[in-house]
């Protein structure tokens, strides 16, 4: 545990709090740059996927983990980004313009979906987002001249300023670069008045209003930003997969995104990266490990959902702060060894506050 002797107010708003953090983040940056030389082509492609999903999860974390608005239709935003990119690329727009457009279109969709949030909250909102998710999916299926309908849509090779970014190392750098920028943007938001307004809305809407926070405005901003991040990720996803169909963006995808965020650790930026990373690692473990299992177990399609279902239930039961919480505990254990006590992170149980008047 680092006890930082603070002498200036700037220290509290610095992104990296102390030398140790500087060191480790520099090491991480170095590792990210060196990855294409260290990893096989297949592994690199998986890491690229993690980067793409980290961007969506970042957006979902902003919305669910920091603003307290649970979205069950997030795959819809992903679809908006992916199809906007596919369509605009087909029209011959350069990536530098089509990517912001994908973010913009998804963001505007986000505002639309956020509109019910101005009137309803909690579970009602989740159901509204779920409904919107289904409607968007159907719209994608029906708008055949843009999306190709159920037959799917092919994307061309990605070139930016004459450089070929089609898969491999270049695409990895592109995704990583965008992901890092997104993380920095969200970190900046969270250390500024906007981020505090989000957290205020999450923890108590009534007192947030009484502190002068315009609920409608900030909820809309949260939905728009979250959707825009999903839109960016959707565009990258489309280029990664190169063939998109509506069923890639269904309800199950929305649920899985939410699961990643919860497994990573709700309410932490690290969680938004841990979640998808863990997801893809476990997926690989399953692919490798199922040959070792008896075929009655290993060759069933249900193996993966079963394992992820169990993981999610275990996380919710035993580690509500997710993988990030586990990591915090482990780090504290190392830092203050041998003085770690079991109850150090014990949560205070707050008994259910009824939202009902009666």
């Amino acid at each position, binding site marked *: 545990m680092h006890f930082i002797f603070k002498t200036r*107010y*700037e220290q*509290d*708003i610095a992104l990296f709090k102390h030398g140790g953090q500087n060191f480790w983040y520099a090491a991480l940056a170095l590792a990210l740059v060196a990855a294409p030389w260290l990893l096989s082509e297949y592994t690199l492609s998986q890491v690229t996927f993690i980067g793409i999903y980290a961007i969506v999860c970042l957006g979902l974390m902003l919305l669910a983990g920091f603003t307290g608005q649970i979205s069950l239709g997030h795959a819809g935003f992903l679809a908006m980004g992916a199809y906007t990119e596919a369509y605009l690329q087909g029209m011959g727009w350069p990536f530098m313009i089509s990517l912001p457009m994908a973010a913009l279109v998804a963001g505007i969709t986000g505002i639309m979906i956020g509109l019910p949030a101005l009137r309803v909250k909690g579970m009602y909102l989740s159901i509204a987002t779920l409904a919107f998710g289904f409607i968007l999916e159907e719209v994608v299926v029906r708008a055949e001249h843009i999306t190709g309908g159920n037959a799917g849509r092919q994307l061309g090779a990605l070139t930016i300023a004459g450089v070929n970014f089609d898969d491999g190392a270049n695409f990895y750098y592109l995704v990583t670069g965008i992901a890092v920028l997104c993380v920095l*943007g*969200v970190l*900046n*938001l969270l*250390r*500024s*008045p*906007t*981020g*505090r*307004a989000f*957290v*205020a809305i*999450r*923890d*108590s809407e*009534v*007192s*947030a*209003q*009484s*502190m*002068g*926070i*315009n*609920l409608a405005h900030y909820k809309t*901003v949260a939905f728009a*930003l979250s959707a825009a991040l999903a839109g960016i990720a959707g565009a990258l996803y489309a280029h990664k997969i190169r063939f998109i169909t509506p069923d890639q963006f269904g309800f199950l995808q929305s649920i899985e995104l939410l699961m990643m965020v919860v497994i990573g650790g709700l*309410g932490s930026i690290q969680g938004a990266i841990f979640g998808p990373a863990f997801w893809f690692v476990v997926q690989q473990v399953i692919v490798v490990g199922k040959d070792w299992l008896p075929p009655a177990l290993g060759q069933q399609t249900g193996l993966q959902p079963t394992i992820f279902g169990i993981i999610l239930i275990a996380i919710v039961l035993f580690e509500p702060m997710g993988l990030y919480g586990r990591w915090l505990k482990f780090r504290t254990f190392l830092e203050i060894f041998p003085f770690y006590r079991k109850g150090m992170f014990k949560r*205070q149980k*707050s008994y259910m506050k009824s939202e009902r008047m009666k």
Partner: protein
Amino acid sequence: MTAPMLEAVNLSVQFGGLRAVNDVSFGVWPNEVFSLIGPNGAGKTTIFNLISALYRPTSGEVRFEGEVISRMPPHVVARHGIARTFQNIELFEHATVLQNLLVGRHCHRHTGWWQDMLFTGSVRRAELEFRRQVEEVIEFLDLQHYRDSMVVGLPYGVRKVVELARALSMRPRLLLLDEPSSGLNTEETEDMGFWIEDIKHDLGITVIMVEHDMGLVSRVSDRVLALNLGEVLTLGTPQEVQAHPGVIEAYLGGVDDV
């Protein structure tokens, strides 16, 4: 004589068949401590919710410095310089004390979310300025020790002070305190009394408070409004109100009830 700072004019509110507040009028002068007392269900907190625009009056209106605030959205009322605390503490529990207080500076922000996302120079300067202002409140209420603690782990008494601090961070002109001493021990109540006096004298903030502790009420209040079943019983100095037969009856029950 100046005009009243806050004025309730024939304020009524009805929930279904229940008239929670019935034709209540009063005025609060600048820089006074004005207390609302009355038994449970008298409509005190409802009046607070009407002032901070969480409820809409069925009829009548609330004016703040001559402007009708009872038709505004709650966050706009807050921006006019009205801060409040809540009976059952409504802090942002999964944030630190410092972050809670910084939310109090929210109405004074000038940057938009796009600037925040880039953390531009103006955001940085504003943040440091907010921090400096919040630090004054921390010093005023002796919260230095809890600055970086999560609210969720704090004892009740401290939370009560943090909520007061958060309201003060807004630098309001009018402060609404909903039962500031409930759940506090004698010592903490004593401190709360001193702080309310200081808020009035040193910070020049007008205070309206709902309170059950008559000791605290008579110590700090300039005037007291007694309510029962949504209607005004009497208005006057703490001594006058305590001696009023209607108030005694409301609290202790009338002769007929014995």
